[in-house]
């Protein structure tokens, strides 16, 4: 039985937004989120009952984020820049700029693997289906991504903060 789409948004909206932020940065994340849920709403009646809804949404977000990245690459504008006014969007302040730069500097595959495993909580087998390639390759990409983040992110939060 298919539950009302409203419940899908309520349950997964937050996770998908966090995934989109890691994939694209704070600014473009909102467009990707909107594109993802509109596409999901369209396809929802045909989603198989056995499907993992979160993995399905992350797969759609993955494709939408690739669309955004491709559009960016066609534009001459610099892409390394972190969103100009994160606080205006109700997101973290300046102290996180370094973090977003470190995330943005990751190779696409590592950033994707980090987002899908550490933010969405998907198992590597599901991530391998989204990224293509083997489960081990997905696990390595996530591990390399974390290693690079640790190396490049200067924030003190990385060291010894309780979790």
């Amino acid at each position: 039985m298919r539950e009302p789409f409203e419940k899908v948004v309520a349950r997964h909206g937050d996770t998908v937004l966090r995934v989109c932020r890691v994939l694209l940065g704070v600014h473009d994340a909102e467009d990707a989120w909107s594109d993802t849920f509109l596409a999901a709403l369209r396809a929802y009646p045909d989603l198989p009952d056995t499907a993992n809804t979160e993995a399905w949404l992350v797969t759609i977000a993955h494709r939408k984020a690739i669309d955004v990245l491709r559009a960016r690459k066609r534009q001459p504008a610099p892409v390394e820049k972190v969103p100009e006014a994160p606080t205006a969007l109700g997101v973290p302040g300046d102290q996180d700029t370094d973090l977003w730069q470190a995330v943005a500097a990751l190779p696409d595959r590592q950033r994707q693997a980090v987002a899908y495993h550490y933010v969405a909580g998907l198992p590597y087998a599901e991530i391998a289906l989204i990224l293509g390639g083997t489960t081990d390759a997905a696990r390595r990409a996530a591990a390399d991504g974390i290693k690079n983040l640790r190396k490049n992110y200067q924030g003190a939060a990385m060291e010894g903060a309780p979790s």
Partner: protein
Amino acid sequence: MNVIPDYLTSPSDAGTLARLRGRLERAADAEGLLDVAYTTVDSPVGALLLAATPQGLVRVAYDIEDHDRVLDTLAQRLSPRVLRAPKRLDAAARELDEYFGGRRQAFDLPLDLSLSSGFRQLVQRHLPEIGYGQTRTYGQVATLVGNPKAVRAVGTACATNPLPVVVPCHRVLPASGGPGRYVGGPAAKVTLLTLEAA
């Protein structure tokens, strides 16, 4: 385990999500994907769930019907593309507010009767002919729809009315006296009849 900065995995702020929800609601409507829009309103007979298809108001549900279950049923019977989207229900909410305030005696809303069929729908189509402040017995309604023997079936049609309050099944009473059964519970039926008798 502090594998990645907590910030990446901390919840997004509610304001951003609410704004994105509004954007989804508008985009879904513009793209023709808002198959069932719903909202809830407060009333003297408790919280009411209002749901509409593009054709019109399709469901009014009392709290005791369990709004979550009602939404599940709408997803199954109409479409799973169900979103909280109050804008489509603005007119219905306003007319209900006027009704409960004693400023409205008849509803002027497009209705979608697709949740009922056959004889039940026939009865429900005729119920608005019972004017504000009036009542009929189940037997009288059976005669009204041209099937005087179908008293029980009229009772079932009233009990399964998907649009209570707006389609006034509360104006149908047992010949034996008392308020009789009601989808919102007997107390709600008495509240509506008292309001209309004032």
